[in-house]
């Protein structure tokens, strides 16, 4: 079983602050994806990282894939209320399915 641990589980910050959330595993993944989920909706894909050490930027969001392809981080700069949501990381381990973490619940207070 490939387990992904996400931390912190819950994070509440003021608008304009920066935040970083983490996704860690003892397993190696061929790719890792980050999704954001809002209440009543399915998760929406934000980014896929494939190469160890890879850094991808999506506007104010920066995603990093660890060198060993076992962990990842998501950094949000100058958070906005629209960034509020459940951030899920998911790893593909070669068995044609994604293993998901439990998520980082982020609340940005206006």
């Amino acid at each position, binding site marked *: 079983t490939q387990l992904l641990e996400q931390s912190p589980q819950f994070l509440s910050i003021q608008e304009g602050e920066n935040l970083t959330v983490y996704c860690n595993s003892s397993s190696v993944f061929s790719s890792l994806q980050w999704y954001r989920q809002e209440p009543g909706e399915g998760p929406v894909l934000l980014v896929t990282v494939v190469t160890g050490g890879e850094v991808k930027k999506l506007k104010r969001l920066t995603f990093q894939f660890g060198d060993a392809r076992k962990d990842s981080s998501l950094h949000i700069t100058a958070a906005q209320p629209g960034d509020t949501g459940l951030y899920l990381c998911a790893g593909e381990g070669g068995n044609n399915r994604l293993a*998901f973490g439990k998520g980082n619940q982020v609340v940005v207070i206006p």
Partner: protein
Amino acid sequence: GAGVSQSPSNKVTEKGKDVELRCDPISGHTALYWYRQSLGQGLEFLIYFQGNSAPDKSGLPSDRFSAERTGGSVSTLTIQRTQQEDSAVYLCASSPVYGYTFGSGTRLTVV
């Protein structure tokens, strides 16, 4: 359609009844996945289809759960003799290669 469509969006059923959940994937996506999301839990893998074949059914919780896919398109997930522990949001996703596109899910409540 442009996205993955799931129906019904909400379903309340009595314990012991059978339910059928439907997923319409994005046209041309050969891979289709069913996951279950319970409160405070991550997404739990149920089953994966490649075309009409299900090479991986290992996530189905019990023999009360079954799924099929026809024409490489629509999929149905059937739960027989529902139990209260089956209450969850059932999510369907389709995929070309990388990245899943999820539907909005079916919220199943067993009373």
